[in-house]
């Protein structure tokens, strides 16, 4: 209990403190309004507030709205209520650590593993249990770039606007007309029987006015995975602008970055301020421009996020040059897995634009049989030109 924050004597009371807490959460990126503060207060009156853990659970139920938020909540709660005097502390939004134990943010590690290339990961929670099946993985065997580069230097606002327009057109090109269920429409190809009967009531059961229905357009959802490893850094500007534009143009799109690990950047890029969004993205793309592990990253994607966000109506765009430091069969397995979810996979490779390019990189060769399309993209103009080809897919 000694950790509980000591508020100033002139503090106006519990209601103000709760309001302060909600403001603290809001500052740290949780989307809360006045109504939530009210509910939070009501919730606390239902609990016995002398038990901090009960209050913590109650506030968590009220103030969070997704898994990520729920996981960050504990830190935010501690920094406000359990901080012994310091009332506010800005908590840097951390990328979720749900991924796995072979994924380490260099920011979390504080440089401790800098010289430890080739050491096994720390033993798991069971303590002292030895893995006999060889699942112990090496970390830091591929050099990660520790200098964080600010992506805002690379992307200009007008490029985002241009990319947004291109992304919007590509989204429109991918619209598909294969919805199975028909809905009411003025000009439809079939009779809407239920509606017709319903309207016939007005004319004593005689169906004078025939209503119709048709198959509506169903938009495909675009999921973009962008490689930001060292070999791709020349093209990063184009692709990052494209991602930023894509997410601003299409509310259902989803975006990820990968180099030696995979980061979901959808939430960050949804920020209203375009440049702030890019700033948040650069925080998350920590280690940007280092080595590339395409296979493991795609595998990670297929096993985690893809299960939630990829279905038969998704198009997965992979923006990468295919130079991988890991065995190529991993890429093939990952793509095969992705394909099973029924999505279309398009690989956009900047190198393909070169005059006499052949996919000799082993990773690229392994990926080819699993792709629906393999295209060259170097500039925003190339992306725009893709529109027509994607429409025929």
């Amino acid at each position, binding site marked *: 209990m000694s950790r509980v924050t000591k508020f100033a004597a002139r503090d106006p009371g519990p209601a103000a403190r709760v309001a302060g807490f909600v403001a603290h959460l809001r500052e740290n990126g949780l*989307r*809360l*309004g006045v*109504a*939530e503060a009210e*509910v939070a207060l*009501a*919730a606390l009156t*239902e*609990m*016995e507030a002398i038990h901090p*853990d*009960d209050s913590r*659970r*109650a506030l*968590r*139920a*009220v103030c*969070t*709205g*997704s*898994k990520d938020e*729920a996981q960050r909540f504990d830190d935010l709660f501690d920094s406000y209520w359990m901080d012994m005097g310091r009332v506010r502390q800005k908590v840097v939004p951390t990328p979720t650590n749900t991924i796995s134990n072979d994924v380490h943010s260099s920011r979390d590690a504080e440089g401790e593993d800098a010289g430890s290339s080739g050491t096994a990961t720390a033993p798991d929670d069971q303590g002292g249990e030895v893995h006999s099946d060889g699942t112990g993985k090496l970390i830091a065997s591929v050099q990660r770039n520790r200098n964080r580069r600010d992506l805002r230097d690379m992307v200009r606002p007008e490029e985002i606007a241009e990319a947004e327009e291109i992304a919007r057109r590509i989204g429109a090109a991918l619209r598909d007309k294969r919805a199975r*269920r028909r809905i009411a429409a003025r000009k439809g190809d079939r009779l809407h029987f*239920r509606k017709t*009967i*319903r309207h*016939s*009531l007005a004319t*004593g*059961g005689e169906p004078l006015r025939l209503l119709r229905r048709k198959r509506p357009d169903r938009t495909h959802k675009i999921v973009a995975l962008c490689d930001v490893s060292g070999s791709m850094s020349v093209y990063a500007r184009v692709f990052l602008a494209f991602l930023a534009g894509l997410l601003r143009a299409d509310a*259902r799109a989803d975006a990820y970055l990968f180099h030696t690990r995979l980061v979901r950047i959808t939430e960050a890029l949804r920020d209203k301020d375009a440049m702030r969004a890019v700033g948040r993205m650069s925080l998350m793309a920590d280690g940007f421009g280092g080595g590339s592990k395409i296979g493991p990253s795609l595998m990670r994607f297929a*096993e985690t996020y893809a299960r*939630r*966000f990829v*279905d038969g109506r998704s198009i997965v765009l992979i923006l990468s040059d295919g130079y991988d430091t890991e065995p190529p069969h991993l890429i093939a397995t990952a793509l095969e897995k992705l394909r099973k979810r029924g999505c279309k996979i398009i690989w956009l490779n900047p190198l393909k634009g070169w005059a006499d390019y052949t996919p000799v990189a082993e990773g690229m060769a392994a990926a080819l049989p699993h792709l629906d399309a393999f295209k060259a993209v170097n500039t925003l103009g190339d992306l725009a030109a893709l529109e027509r080809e994607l429409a025929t897919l």
Partner: protein
Amino acid sequence: MTWTDLKTALAGEGYVASDDLAVALHLALSLGRPLLLEGAAGVGKTEIARTVSAVRNTRLLRLQCYEGLDAAQAIYEWNYQRQLLTIRAAAEDGETGKAVEDRIFSRDFLLERPLLAAITQSKPPVLLIDEIDRADEEFEAYLLEILSDYQVSIPELGTITCVTQPIVILTSNGTRDLSDALRRRCLYTYVEYPDRSTELAILKARCPEVEARLANQIVGFVQKLREEELEKTPGIAEMLDFAAALMGLGIADLTEEPAVLHSTLTTLLKTQSDQARITSEVAARIAGKAA
């Protein structure tokens, strides 16, 4: 009633809830807010609604969401066939238009779907809106009116306001992101796979006839199995099936007969590649570790 009482009451009906879930549910009940539960398939999201209805001794109204679900399926629809028959019958009897119209647009001709039914009960029911992430985004918008005001507007009949406010539980498997508008109207809890002691308590509550030693082995085995890389991680329901299968075969010790153990794995592993991955040797190794 405090949240610990609620937790005890739930346990009395055979549902072992985590503290987080119990607190959230307690708040949902006392503040009259909908509760949104997210989590992997098979962690007991749907079951909690069933248990709450048993604890409160009320009806459970379930709305299973699917793509293309619309208002006619979820809220109300007029009984057209009956209306048509009535119109024809009225025409034979020579009734006038106005009287007929009043009659065929009355509550008798209204087919109540789960959402309307939920707000017209005399005793507050439990309304379970299952797998909301499967429904279209348009449908989420319909829900907003009902979840915040608990009323339904029917053009021909007027607005039906709630008699009693239902206990609303929404579940989601996270196949798509829900809208912020819906999230902020609900209390939220992410339901995790249970830890070892909780899962043991669940097994004891549901299958009291399992011996303590075997129960320990079963739970240990399933917990270890969840750490393997599987396409479909086994949930609690699968664990209970597994226990039932072992009971049915009369097995008293998991480590004794690897062949039989492997044949019962069909209750836990639901895809071909998972079954190929967990071979008889792997299963025996996991069982050995878990014991």
